[in-house]
């Protein structure tokens, strides 16, 4: 791999972001702990009625994972903007959208993957039948990158503004709704023994489209945010 080629740049950037995340492992653990606490509290609040918990398990896990992901979302470009790395990235002779896609991938690996790994544990605590577990994991594997990509565009759009957290949450809400409906819908259908492939396919289609469009939108939004 020649230094300066696009593939070398992708590897360098991905390795940089993963190394940075590893040096601050505490930040990775935080969303996981948050999800664990939320799911642990549900049985205490609703009572140990296993039929009720089984019915809400899929939805609770989905929403918890989504909220836990939001915790880390606005960190995606912040440190890069603060220390000037983003300008160095923009001046590099590399396609910015692809470089941002690498950053989003690194963010998904550090923020969402740990949550997906503990998701079976979370679902087990709420008595989700183990037969439904693969559907839950499949829906999370599609819905979390979708959220990372949509979130990245919004983070880039609000990058120039101070205290963008509130604005970000407000803008992300309508985009989250369909994701939650389809991913929780797949789990609910599987629990009732109904075919669940259709919502999963919808999520896959949305992910395929976002995967192509979101990095481009992200690059354009970030350029506008810094052109001030």
């Amino acid at each position, binding site marked *: 791999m020649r*230094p*300066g080629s696009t593939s*070398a*740049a992708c590897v360098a950037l991905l390795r940089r972001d993963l*190394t940075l995340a590893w040096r*601050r492992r505490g930040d990775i653990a935080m969303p996981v702990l948050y999800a664990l606490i939320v799911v642990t509290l549900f049985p205490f609040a609703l009572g140990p009625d296993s039929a009720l918990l089984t019915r809400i398990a899929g939805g609770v896990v989905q929403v918890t994972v989504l909220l836990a992901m939001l915790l880390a979302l606005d960190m995606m470009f912040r440190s890069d903007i603060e220390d*000037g*790395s983003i300008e*160095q990235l923009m*001046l590099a002779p590399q396609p910015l959208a692809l470089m941002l896609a690498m950053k989003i991938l690194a963010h998904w690996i550090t923020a969402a993957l740990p949550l997906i790994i503990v998701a079976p544990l979370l679902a087990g605590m709420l008595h989700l039948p183990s037969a439904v577990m693969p559907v839950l994991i499949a829906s999370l594997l599609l819905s979390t990158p979708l959220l990372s990509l949509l979130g990245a565009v919004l983070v880039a759009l609000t990058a120039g503004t101070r205290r963008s957290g509130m604005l970000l949450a407000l803008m992300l809400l309508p985009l989250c709704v369909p994701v939650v409906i389809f991913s929780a819908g797949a789990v609910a259908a599987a629990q009732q023994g109904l075919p669940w492939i259709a919502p999963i396919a919808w999520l896959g289609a949305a992910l395929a489209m976002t995967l192509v469009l979101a990095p481009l939108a992200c690059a354009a939004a970030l350029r506008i945010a810094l052109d001030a």
Partner: protein
Amino acid sequence: MTVPDPANVLLEARQLSFFRQDEPVFGPLDFRLLAGQVALIEGDNGSGKTTLMRLLTGLLHVEDGELLLHGAPLTRQGAAGEIAFLGHQLGLKSDLTPRENLRVTEGLYGRRRGLDPATALGAVGLLGYEDEPVRRLSAGQKKRAALARLLLIPAALWLLDEPYANLDREGIALVNRLLDRHAREGGAALVTSHGAVSFAGGEPQRIRLHA
């Protein structure tokens, strides 16, 4: 003054000015930067030195006047990889070591012939600090690490925004030496500073900014 060979003109500004909310920041400005030349941008605080730098990198849009790189209008695609920028924010990751920071640069930009991260760090006097996290370095050492990145990037045009800040006497001499070598290798540099600066290679071209 002889008319410069147009092939040698690296960067040219024609009637360049910049407005922020209809308030003029600077300009109109005309200058030419030839290969092998170092120019000094002078101006008081708030006179638009940093804004001019950001315009030249292509991070800001040119709205008034013309900016030509190699005789063609400056675009992001055209400027990519041609320009190395050292701003107030150094663009170093504080949790990574200088060596790791330069590896990222190497991946993104490629490297200058005959240099690699280790030799670039040696050239700026950071031997022995290669594997220390950047956040533990002093402000001057951070600046030196950023200068090493500048050395490593194979760009012809250097834009240095206040490169002398935080540097000791030895560091200032280092910047001058790097600029001198860069110019002799056919590169060009624009340097902002509000202090008195002397270059080894004689009197530099001066570009004066007025608000």
